[in-house]
């Protein structure tokens, strides 16, 4: 059953301060909507519970991409299109640029925002494994001020977030040193375009002097939240990549993730594919990881 638009309120304060003031006056009462690619789907299905919405679309303060010497700060209101077409993101952060290109078709990429992808908190969100692999930090803002939290600590459970009722995600910060790493990402879905992932990996590493010098491995769609594979990283760090080590890493990866059976795939398939993706990443890292 479709929702009745007359039953909903939507306001567009036009500035970040205006939106934050509204959230501060009535915390928890207002549901933010940016490009609408998730909220309007809920609305169309008659499942949008909040009746009061505040539009963040086109807020200038949320659309900046700031390039600093050490890090890049991507405004939470940047669309997937703005992200994938930005020259620095394209060149230095291919995991994020590729994830942005995987999300829906062009029309959804022109509207969906990175902040929205984070706040919607789907375990299958395409951009989140990349944020984990890059150890991204989020700048959260409210009328009380700003705070910075590692993305790793932001999603605390299925659709649960470290976000106060009066806060919005303002920006995503990524260290530019990761651009020097070998980067690998792959999404496995039912078809190439417009598919929600069965399993998605984002990983980066440095391989030199015949050993894994540094490594980050993250997965989406295999647990209630995107997961970082700290256990697998630990057994890999400092060691040469050899068949026995790859087999061990695959095993640790499979035991770390908690995939489920659902309409898109099975737990067994997801575990097997996750292990194979770890192996493919390690083989490529061994081949190219020392070249900067």
């Amino acid at each position, binding site marked *: 059953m*479709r*929702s009745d*638009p*007359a039953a*909903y*309120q*939507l*306001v*567009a*304060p*036009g500035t970040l301060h205006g939106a934050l003031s509204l959230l501060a006056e009535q915390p928890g009462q207002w549901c933010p*909507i940016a*490009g*609408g*690619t998730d909220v*309007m*789907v809920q*609305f*169309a*299905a008659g499942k949008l519970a909040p009746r009061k*919405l505040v*539009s963040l*679309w*086109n807020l200038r303060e949320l659309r900046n991409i700031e390039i600093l010497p050490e890090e890049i700060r991507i405004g939470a209101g940047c669309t997937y*299109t703005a992200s994938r077409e930005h020259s620095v993101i394209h060149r230095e952060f291919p995991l994020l640029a590729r994830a942005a290109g995987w999300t*829906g*078709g*062009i*029309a*959804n990429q*022109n*509207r969906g925002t990175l902040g929205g992808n984070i706040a919607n908190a789907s375990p299958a969100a395409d951009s989140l494994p990349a944020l984990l692999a890059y150890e991204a930090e989020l700048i959260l803002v409210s009328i009380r001020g700003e705070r910075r939290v590692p993305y790793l600590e932001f999603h605390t459970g299925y659709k649960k977030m470290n976000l106060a009722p009066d806060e919005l995600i303002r920006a995503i910060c990524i260290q530019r040193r990761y651009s020097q790493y070998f980067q690998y990402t792959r999404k496995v879905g039912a078809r*190439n*375009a*417009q598919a929600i992932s069965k399993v998605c990996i984002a990983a980066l590493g440095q391989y030199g002097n015949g050993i894994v010098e540094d490594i980050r491995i993250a997965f989406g769609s295999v647990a209630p939240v995107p997961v970082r594979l700290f256990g697998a990283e630990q057994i890999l760090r400092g060691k040469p990549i050899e068949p026995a080590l790859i087999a061990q890493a695959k095993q640790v990866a499979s035991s770390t993730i908690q995939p489920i059976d659902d309409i898109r795939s099975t737990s067994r398939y997801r575990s097997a594919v996750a292990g194979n993706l770890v192996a493919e990443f390690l083989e490529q890292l061994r081949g190219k990881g020392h070249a900067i």
Partner: protein
Amino acid sequence: MAAPHETDGRCVISFTVNGSPRTVQVYPMQRLLDVLRKELQLTGAKEGCGEGECGSCSVLVNGELVNSCLIPALQAEGARVTTIEGLSKGPHLSALQKAFLNCGGAQCGICTPGMILSASHLLSKNPEPTLDDIREGLAGNLCRCTGYMQIFEAVAQAAKQSIAKPEAERPENRA
């Protein structure tokens, strides 16, 4: 910021549709698709899935391809909207529309307006697309009749013709 109407929650939205200024009084959460079809009688944009998967409601907003089923009316305030009705100039079809006819790129017609707007958006950004570019540009538009090949051919043909012709001779630039 559009002011909500005092009594029933509706608001006045002013925007430009196919080059003409339009004003409508609608609920802010009314979908742009419904505003176009029901308030402005522009029925070229179709409703397929209603959830941003099929692309049959595609229109251009400020030159960007979007699914009009996912846009609340309030977010179209002040925007430039182009629908399929805005691509032809009177009886003159655009090069893309002609190419779709020539190549058999349209059958039942439900996906066609969205396909043509996606193709138009693609060619505006990338006038010489490869087949892969065309596939990606149209990936958000589903067709259940053609099998897509004639559609891709039509886009490639329109691109070739547009490059071959000087700017002023293209149908979309004729008065």
